[in-house]
């Protein structure tokens, strides 16, 4: 006010006085007066840790609000009503100010609403930095507006200023207080934490180390639309973890982040932590970026290539090698035709499977990779097929008809379709082996839009067919293979054994799906097929009535074998001891509720990787002892038969096939283990469990 009164009458006074006035008018009005301002029921003061600083230094400034008891001011998110303080710094050239650093707030209920703010006293911090261009003495100004509220709110504003000199930093009277406030700002949350949206609630879960007992907790959301402020937050403390239930907001703003500040109280301290988690708003269908897509397709190709070396493809591989050996005597053109035909068979099968998967997926059925072998009928037919192929290898039988040609593919000169069918067979037999290499990729494929699924399956098929294609185009590569001769017959006969071995394995798979009697029936069916093939071979060169007789008896035997095949699952008496360890969602939940660590093994009899892992790792005494000593409960989810609950659990982890190994800590947080286990690796995982 003084400035205004002086302004007119003294305008033409001495230069000295004018300068003084200009200084007053430009650098301050009556409001730019002090570092302290007294408002009704509150005061604010700008404080600094030091009155001097050098270029390059950072300086902590504070806005210290003091409130009359019963009054409060707000946090950056005020809750249901009110508004946090606004600070506009006016800094001289060469200075930079940080955002306001907000100390953790208190929950201040205003029934029936909830607000977040501060009572009694609060210091909002700002860091300023002097750059090279800084000029001293520097006058730092702050324009502050805030609300002082009780049941009513009073808006207040103040203009404060502070002068900073050039020099070494020397602690002021406020330095201690400022650094205390700074140290108590919300910290990064280092322990494992996550958030889950369930029904109308969020569950914020975090691990606790035993040293910091928590007596109460409260989450202050940063943004509007996340949670319902006035609803009670329910804390559940387990031995090593806590879970805070927070009601979701009535308004759904589809927020992407669960962000805010978590307050943990114990007897003598209050600690604030920053929480910023991603909320996947049911976006399970995460889209792949182009580079991820390309990478997935490349991996699918490599995976397909590797399939050729897998044990369950081995019989087919040997068949094909035989085939190529014989073909190498044929024309180059034929070779290429066979190679293309085989590849076409592979691709068509992969595409059909992709199509079928998509179809079933759209039908909502729970399916998975290797699922073909979940059908007892499919298993039985494969058993018959392998038995028959083995027998034709051993005999001099030349069969007609398409199915027989499958087994007769070593006679590859003839029909191009035989190569095609070999391709088909190769894929079907190979499918259980894809899990370790392709489990994740297939999982991704199934969660992707249809065309990506198809692209992945085509790539898988191309990789699988690539070696054969290469050999058929460049038969010179075949020269590395031995010259044909009498050894071929020996080799062919020998190949019967892997075939029968496969049949044996499939029989064991079947025994997990149907009763012993039914397995016996299938073996009887296999016997019929062997008998039929023997009759065929005996009458190979005969004709007329004998030929007719043999063909009709073979037909009857084949029919009988198929009639004997089980079509669906049967109840198997399970021994009760294994029942204790068999997975059910309820059992898992109850174990986790008791804070017991759990090792969960998703397996299936038809999954070779699973069986290998079990044999060489899981069933080892060292592993059993380690699990026991850590009190880890071993659960087995057997997916040999179709099982909705297991398929659902697999889907939670983006899987559509087994194996999958989960190790739950006592806090109930699962770690996904690799699909190919080793003893040392598993032991080191077990070691991490407390």
């Amino acid at each position, binding site marked *: 006010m003084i400035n205004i009164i002086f302004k007119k009458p003294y305008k033409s006074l001495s230069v000295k006085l004018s300068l003084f006035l200009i200084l007053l008018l430009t650098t301050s009005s009556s409001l730019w007066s002090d570092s302290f301002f007294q408002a009704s029921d509150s005061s604010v003061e700008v404080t600094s840790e030091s009155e001097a600083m050098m270029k390059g230094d950072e300086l902590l400034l504070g806005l210290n609000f003091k409130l009359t008891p019963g009054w409060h001011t707000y946090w950056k998110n005020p809750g*249901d009503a009110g508004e946090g303080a606004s600070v506009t710094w006016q800094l001289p050239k060469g200075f930079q100010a940080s955002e306001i650093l907000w100390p953790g707030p208190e929950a201040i209920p205003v029934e029936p*609403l909830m607000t977040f703010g501060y009572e009694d006293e609060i210091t909002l911090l700002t860091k300023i930095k002097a750059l090279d261009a800084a000029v001293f003495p520097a006058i730092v100004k702050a324009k502050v507006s805030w609300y002082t509220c009780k049941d009513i709110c009073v808006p207040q*504003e103040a203009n404060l200023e502070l002068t900073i000199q050039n020099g070494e930093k020397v602690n002021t009277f406020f330095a201690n207080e400022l650094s205390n406030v700074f140290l108590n700002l919300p910290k990064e949350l280092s322990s494992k934490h996550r958030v889950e949206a369930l029904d109308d609630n969020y569950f914020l879960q975090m691990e606790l180390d035993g040293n910091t007992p928590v007596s109460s907790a409260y989450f202050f959301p940063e943004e509007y639309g996340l949670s319902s402020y006035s609803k009670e937050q329910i804390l559940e403390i387990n031995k090593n973890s806590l879970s805070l239930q927070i009601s979701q907001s009535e308004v759904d703003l589809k927020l992407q982040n669960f962000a805010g500040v978590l307050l943990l109280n114990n007897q003598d301290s209050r600690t604030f932590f920053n929480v910023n988690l991603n909320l996947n708003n049911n976006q399970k269908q995460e889209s792949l970026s182009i580079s991820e897509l390309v990478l997935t397709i490349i991996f699918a190709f490599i995976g397909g290539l590797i399939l050729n070396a897998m044990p369950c493809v081995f019989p087919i591989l040997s068949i094909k090698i035989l085939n190529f050996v014989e073909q190498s005597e044929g024309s180059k053109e034929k070779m290429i035709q066979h190679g293309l035909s085989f590849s076409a068979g592979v691709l068509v099968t992969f595409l059909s499977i992709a199509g079928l998967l998509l179809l079933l997926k759209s039908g909502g059925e729970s399916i998975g990779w290797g699922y073909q072998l979940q059908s007892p009928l499919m298993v039985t037919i494969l058993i018959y097929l392998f038995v028959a192929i083995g027998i034709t290898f051993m005999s001099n039988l030349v069969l007609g008809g398409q199915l027989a040609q499958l087994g007769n593919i070593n006679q590859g000169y003839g029909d191009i379709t035989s190569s095609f069918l070999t391709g088909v067979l190769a894929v079907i037999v190979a499918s259980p082996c894809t899990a370790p290499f392709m489990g994740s990729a297939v999982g991704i494929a199934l969660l992707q839009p249809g065309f990506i699924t198809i692209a992945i399956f085509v790539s898988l098929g191309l990789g699988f067919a690539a070696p054969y294609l290469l050999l058929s185009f460049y038969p010179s590569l075949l020269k590395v293979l031995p010259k044909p001769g009498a050894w071929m017959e020996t080799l062919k006969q020998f190949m019967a054994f892997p075939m029968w071995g496969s049949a044996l394995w499939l029989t064991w798979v079947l025994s997990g799906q149907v009763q012993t009697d039914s397995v016996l029936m299938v073996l009887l069916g296999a016997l019929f097929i062997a008998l039929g093939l023997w009759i065929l071979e005996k009458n190979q060169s005969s004709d007329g009535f004998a030929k007719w007789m043999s063909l009709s008896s073979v037909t009857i035997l084949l029919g009988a074998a198929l009639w004997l095949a089980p079509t669906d699952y049967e109840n198997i008496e399970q021994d009760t001891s294994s029942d204790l360890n068999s997975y059910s969602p309820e059992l898992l939940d109850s174990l986790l509720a008791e804070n017991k660590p759990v090792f969960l093994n998703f397996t299936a009899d038809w999954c070779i990787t699973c069986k290998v892992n079990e044999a060489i790792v899981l069933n080892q005494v060292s592993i059993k002892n380690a699990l026991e000593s850590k009190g880890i409960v071993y659960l087995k989810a057997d997916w040999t038969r179709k099982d909705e609950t297991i398929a659902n659990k697999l889907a939670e982890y983006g899987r559509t096939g087994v194996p999958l190994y989960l190790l739950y800590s006592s806090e109930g947080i699962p770690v996904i283990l690799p699909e190919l286990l080793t003893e040392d690796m598993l032991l080191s995982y077990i070691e991490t469990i407390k």
Partner: protein
Amino acid sequence: MQYVVSILLLVFLEISYASAKTEEQAPDFNLLNSYGETVKLSEFKGQTVVLEWTNHGCPFVAKHYKTNNMQNTQTAAKEASVVWLSIISSAPGTQGFVTNEEANELTKSRNALPSHVLQDPEGFVGKAYGAKTTPHMYLIDKAGILRYQGAIDDAGGRGFMFKDLSQAKNYIISALVELNQGTEITDRVTKPYGCSVKYKS
């Protein structure tokens, strides 16, 4: 009798507390206006309705009236034949609670243009809508569907008192324009800002 009705209302409204959801049927209510007449929301079916929670003592509300921002919004609504209901949910003895006479005097002195000023001293209606602040705005379409809830404009946030409200985006006017054009309402839920509603505790 009134007691029984209150209890029944309480039961009904407690169930629907804070349940007003955008794109759903707006909860119906019965309140007395500043002339002592009963006003029922459902009697305005076929008309667009704006609900304004107000408290003349709240500095946020005061700024909206002092700058004529609220009156300008009311004028725009009136020109579009929109029913404007100003609702006072302040409990007796708290800030914003007014007698009918005072309410009418405020309307006159501020040149306000509400269709009705409604008295909700028990806070039933405020709680049914989940009204948290003054001002807190709701827009109900001709079919009785709640189409907007939240702030009057985007001037909320820290530093409100320094802001020029004529530069702010008025959510009510935008929503009314969009509703009239039959286009999708861009902002259907925003964060309300202002003083807390002074409910009876």
